């Protein structure tokens, strides 16, 4: 139902024009964004071209693109980038498979569906730090339940250089698959039933129907879920920070945190933050292009 503002409405009688009301809502928000988002963003961009250290009283010296060059030549940072990229691939694809699979299972009449859906959503309602600490106990090689349940002996999930990253990714998949499931369910429930009926009349197989009817129609919303999760996975810090200190599993956010707040290399840390920002924007743009194509189809 559409509501229209009558000339005798309270605002009109007080003499507030539509523009005034609009400004009342918009100006505080824009001011907030400028003060707390845009200004720090530009300020840190300035820092990224200096040797500024927040822990020092020395004035910042302009160093041009030196910070960017140093970062791009640093093998430790490249290792963190490679680790992060692999983590994003493993984590997001895992969440996609598990989340979409759960959505397909729940997109049919089953008893207790509401309760089951609610229970499945619980992990993403928890704090990432709490989740990390729980899983740290689960992974414990001496008395963790995972090794016991799977009969894996004393597997050191979080300290083994080859396993630590996957252990963190599994935790992330457990936590965020419900998010993908939720969006997928919304997409699946929006697929018109008559398309399935038409496919059935045409004697299309279930696999054919899935690939030709379900997937194309759900693709845009799935891509949105993937965009969100990719951006979040790229920025993962809390879970990994709490769970493991293994340098081979160090994500770029952890490296950034160390540079910015443990070592107080404010200038180089700002440069690294901008490199990460540009990378995330590039990846997101690729997804958005696919999203637009999927919408057009």
């Amino acid at each position, binding site marked *: 139902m559409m509501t229209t503002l009558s000339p005798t409405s309270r605002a009109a009688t007080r003499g507030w024009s539509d523009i005034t009301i609009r400004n009342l809502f918009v100006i505080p928000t824009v001011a907030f964004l400028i003060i707390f988002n845009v200004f720090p963003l530009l300020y840190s961009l300035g820092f990224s071209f200096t040797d500024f250290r*927040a*822990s*020092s*009283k020395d004035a910042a010296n302009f160093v041009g693109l030196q910070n960017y060059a140093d970062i791009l030549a640093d093998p*430790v940072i490249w290792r963190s980038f490679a680790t992060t990229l692999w983590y994003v691939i493993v984590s997001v694809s895992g969440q996609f498979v598990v989340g979409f699979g759960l959505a397909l299972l729940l997109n049919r009449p089953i008893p207790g569906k509401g309760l089951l859906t609610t229970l499945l959503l619980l992990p993403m309602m928890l704090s990432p730090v709490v989740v990390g600490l729980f899983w740290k106990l689960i992974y*414990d*090689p*001496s008395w963790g339940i995972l090794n016991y349940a799977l009969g894996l002996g*004393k*597997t*050191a*999930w*979080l*300290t*083994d*250089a080859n396993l630590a990253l996957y252990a963190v990714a599994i935790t992330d998949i457990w936590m965020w698959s419900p998010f993908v499931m939720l969006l997928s369910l919304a997409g699946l429930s929006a697929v018109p039933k008559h398309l399935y009926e038409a496919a059935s009349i045409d004697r299309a197989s279930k696999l054919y129907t899935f690939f030709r009817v379900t997937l194309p129609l759900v693709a845009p919303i799935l891509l949105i879920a993937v965009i969100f999760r990719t951006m979040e996975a790229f920025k993962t810090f809390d879970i990994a*920070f709490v769970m*493991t*200190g*293994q*340098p*081979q599993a160090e994500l770029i956010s952890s490296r950034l945190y*160390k540079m910015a*707040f*443990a*070592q*107080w*290399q404010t200038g180089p840390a700002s440069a690294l933050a901008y490199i990460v920002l540009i990378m995330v924007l590039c990846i997101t743009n690729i997804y958005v292009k696919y999203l637009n194509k999927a919408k057009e189809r």
Partner: protein
Amino acid sequence: MRRALRGAAAGDRGRPWERSLLLVPAMRDIVSRTSRENDRPPKLGRAFGRFAAVKAPGKEEGLRLVPHLPAVGSARGRTIMRTATKGMLAGLGLMLASSTSVLAQELTILWAEWDPANYLQELVNAYQAETGVTVTVETVPWPDFQTKAFTEFNAQGSAYDLVVGDSQWLGAGSTGGHYVDLTEFVKTHNLTTTMAPATMQFYSEYPGGSGTYWSVPLEGDAVGWAYRKDWFEDPTEMANFKAKYGYDLGVPKDLKQLVDIAEFFHRPAENRYGAAVYTQVPGDAITMGAETFIFSYGGSLGDYANYKVTGLLNSKESAEGLEDYKKLYTYGPPGWGNAFFAEVNTAIAQGQVAMGMNFFAFFPSLLNEATNPQAKNMGFFANPPGPRGDDFAALGGQGISLVSYSQNKDEAMKFLEWLVKDETQKKWAELGGYTAAAAILESDEFQNATPYNKAFFETMFKVRDFWALPEYAELLDEGQQGFYDYVVNGNGTAQEALDKLAATWVESLKAAGYPAE
């Protein structure tokens, strides 16, 4: 004043906000005058008028405040307004003045969240009782401690008057202008002779050997060892050990023996392991453990005064020490690649390990049966010397520094004067704090007070520390990664790991502007 107010209020004190306005003399004047005129209890609303039933055009009749103040612009009205304004300003000034004087009677100390901070709060309660100055110990969890402190320093904030900062912060704290120079204070109170020499050198002096001091040693600490006395004294174990190694099982006389003992007790099939050592990467854990072995094997982390690393960090002695540290790691519980003080104490409490490396500050909980079922079986010893007699231990602990941005510097200096008194240091030790006062450390009373105090006393005279440059955090991060890569991940040899780390540190020191090698 309260009595006068109560008198003016004549038994009806009005609402809280009204009472607060009565603090302003002009308001009191109006209230009392109106009260006399109306012969009514002087609620503020009544002072300005009276409530009456009024019917506004187009609205229902209702109660409204009908003012009976003089007309705006009249001579009486202007006088009252002037008096009221003056009075309000005077009252405001009085409130501000009194609030400032209250603030001056408070001191805030920033420290990490751990037991010694609680002991300090108990200690400073006595100072409050003596002087009336409230001292609050504000704590931050260890992982955020450095970040929190330096964020406040960088903002030049005055939230903290004193900070109990890590020894490695000295460079950043002093050169960054965050700490007040306490050299005169140290000289006046003769702290270089009354405190254990190593504590003044590492907790207070920067640059090394400069004679400039930035803190007062507060919580002395260093790496020591806890062990299972019942396992060590078991006749069967003793016989088996002697048969295997050719000497008696007991508190190790050197680090080679310590490695032997760890190997002997390492029995994964029985869920029993040799030793729990520091391995964690975030923070400084693995460096503290590794440097203890490097120092004691005759190696070094570098020449701190001349910024030299090559040939010192990657000497044969350093490599030998690091190799044996790795051996100890392999005799630890499974997945022991992310361990610091909490994990070590947990492994001991769970009866998993024969020995555990830890800072002395974490030993009290091992004697508490509520937190350690093995409490009755615990023994403690100082880090033993290396194979060639070099006898060192990694330094922990902190000194207390005066923050440059404090607005209560005089009061904070008075507090420090109280803190360094012998009786205060004694009380500090009794509460559980690790004093650095040499006379107390040397006393029998202190050494016999707990099973680990004697080991602590022995250790505090042989401590060595990490680099304390303003760029220490970068060197530490590189050290953590380098040590971990060899000790836990098992990449390359100890010599290769140290060669690589030495080259990295040389580059970092050059980049920071120190004289190149």
